[in-house]
């Protein structure tokens, strides 16, 4: 599916707006805005990565928070031993996410449907319990990170640097995905979603394609985790919890599955909604839960799908 010019214009406008937010926040003296939008960008990065497998591959992974957590713990554990070298943390993030993604993906991609949903969930919970049990690293309470990642010329301790790092990664992934969906790899992946038996009979090793996409998505989610640990200065098993995986799916679906811009818009809308509800009542999930149910039951193609209605077939 190619995005309509209107959605493209909206996306470029949104990105341009986001690029100037730190300047505005500095001028208006609202540091909260930077923190909040950094969180939006980081979760958008994770949601964008989930969309690779969920939207284009049609694989409902309910354990994507696992990789967010692995990225966050790569920072947390190294910082715990006074290692703030960002490149080393990046290496650990990428390596751990790729290895775990490859192993769990290899097992879970053999199944489809309900089994796939549940096996990804189970793997994520397995690591959740693992981190809860690591009492020497804070266990349930998590680890606070005093040393932020230092990449030499970039130091993620500064909120504005962190914001632009997240922004650059989101823009990069958006650009890459725009190209990927038209490249052979993206086309095969989408073919697997539509009719895997047919792709197989055409001679494509579908498992290999799906596994590549899965591992790639895991690594990008790990990068989001690395940034998130730097943003909050803290890492805990809660980052791996299944509720985060669920929220990531909501972000993707709300924005529009299988669209390039969808996850970014979905994340922005969901997190703004959450903030507004939080300001209103401390029992905000009571309203958010039924809202999600309502969105699922009425708007089937997400916000981007709504904007594109009548312009192209799904």
């Amino acid at each position, binding site marked *: 599916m190619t995005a309509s010019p209107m959605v493209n214009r909206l996306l470029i406008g949104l990105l341009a707006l986001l690029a100037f937010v730190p300047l505005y926040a500095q001028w208006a003296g609202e540091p909260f805005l930077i923190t909040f939008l950094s969180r939006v960008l980081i979760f958008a990065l994770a949601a964008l990565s989930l969309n690779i497998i*969920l939207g284009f591959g049609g694989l*409902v992974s*309910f354990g994507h928070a696992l990789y967010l957590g692995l990225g966050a713990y790569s920072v947390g554990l190294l910082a715990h031993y006074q290692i703030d070298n960002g490149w080393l943390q990046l290496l650990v993030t990428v390596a751990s996410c790729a290895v775990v993604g490859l192993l769990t993906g290899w*097992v*879970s991609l*053999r*199944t489809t*449907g*309900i*089994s796939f*949903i*549940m*096996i990804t*969930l*189970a*793997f994520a*919970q*397995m690591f959740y*319990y*693992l981190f*809860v*049990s*690591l*009492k*020497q690293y804070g*266990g349930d309470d998590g680890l606070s990170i005093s040393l932020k990642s230092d990449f030499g010329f970039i130091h993620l301790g500064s909120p504005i640097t962190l914001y632009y790092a997240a922004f650059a990664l989101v823009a990069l992934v958006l650009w890459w995905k725009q190209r990927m969906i038209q490249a052979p790899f993206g086309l095969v992946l989408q073919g697997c979603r539509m009719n895997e038996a047919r792709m197989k009979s055409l001679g494509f090793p579908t498992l290999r394609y799906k596994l590549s996409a899965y591992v790639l998505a895991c690594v990008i989610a790990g990068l989001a985790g690395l940034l998130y640990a730097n943003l909050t200065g803290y890492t805990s098993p809660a980052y791996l919890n*299944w*509720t985060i995986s*669920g929220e990531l*799916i*909501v972000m993707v*679906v709300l924005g529009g*599955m299988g669209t390039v811009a969808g996850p970014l818009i979905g994340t922005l809308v969901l997190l703004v909604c959450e903030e507004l509800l939080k300001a209103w009542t401390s*029992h*905000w*999930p*009571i309203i*958010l*839960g*039924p*809202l*999600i*149910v309502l969105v*699922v*039951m009425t708007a*089937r193609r997400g916000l981007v799908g709504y904007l594109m209605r009548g312009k192209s077939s799904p």
Partner: protein
Amino acid sequence: MTLSLFLIQLLNGLQLGVLLFMLSAGLTLVFGIMNFVNLAHGCMYMMGAYFAATALAASGSFIVAAVVAVLGGGLLGIVIERLMAQHLYMRDHLDQVLATFGLILFFNELARWIWGASPVFMSVPPALSGTVSILGVTYPMYRFFIILVGLLCAVGCWLLISRTRVGMLIRAGSVNPTMVSALGVNIGLLNALIFSLGGALAGVAGLMSGPILSVQPGMGEPVLILVMIVIVIGGIGSIQGAFYAALMVGLIDTAGRAFLPMLLREFIDRSIAQAAGPAIASMLTCIFMATVLALRPRGLFPVKNG
């Protein structure tokens, strides 16, 4: 000493196993027949426990609590089915996951709102507070009672599924629901019945685990994960599979929790071993599931579709 410890852990494993069975029996039918992913099943369990705790506090009678939990769970099942689930049967799994995820957020927060975030206390009924002696091992009577109730539920399910007309329709529905409805069976009614049956069983599980676990918001989800593992191992849609898989998962989980820390203590520091035990135990069940799936992607006791 070692033998008695082993026996106690065996009974503990059985007790967890039958609790898991009560939760997975209803859910596996919902998965198998309606092809519906119901993540909110843990909520019915949680609400069942809260209903029971509230009824027990108000009336002081465990029997009243039991009736309230079963009826409450069953009613909740029907309400969820009629209001939401029935509109999603034909949609893909993703929509079902999302909608039931929304329900989980709602119910957990509702419980926190009504009953507060701290655990609600539920006492063991006085008649069951003693101990029983089994093969020279003293075991809490209440836990033994759980095993009995669980086995009774299993027998009841088996009778219902294999000996009654409704059970026949359920079995037929799990093989080919379209054909069943084409033969003039009101499949909508059957679905609602299965949902409420699952809710009632979840209510029983909530009632029984109330006095031994803490009744608190979010208590359904850790159990839900185990229940899903059970269903995947047992084969989606198979009650028989759910029973055997529940016992296996219960025993593996309990044995891992009980014996792994002891084993680990031989190699690493005591406090770390104590903490790592539960994690490795929960990993054991996941590894068990992964092995089963790798060898038999449709579970150990698959329902023959076709």
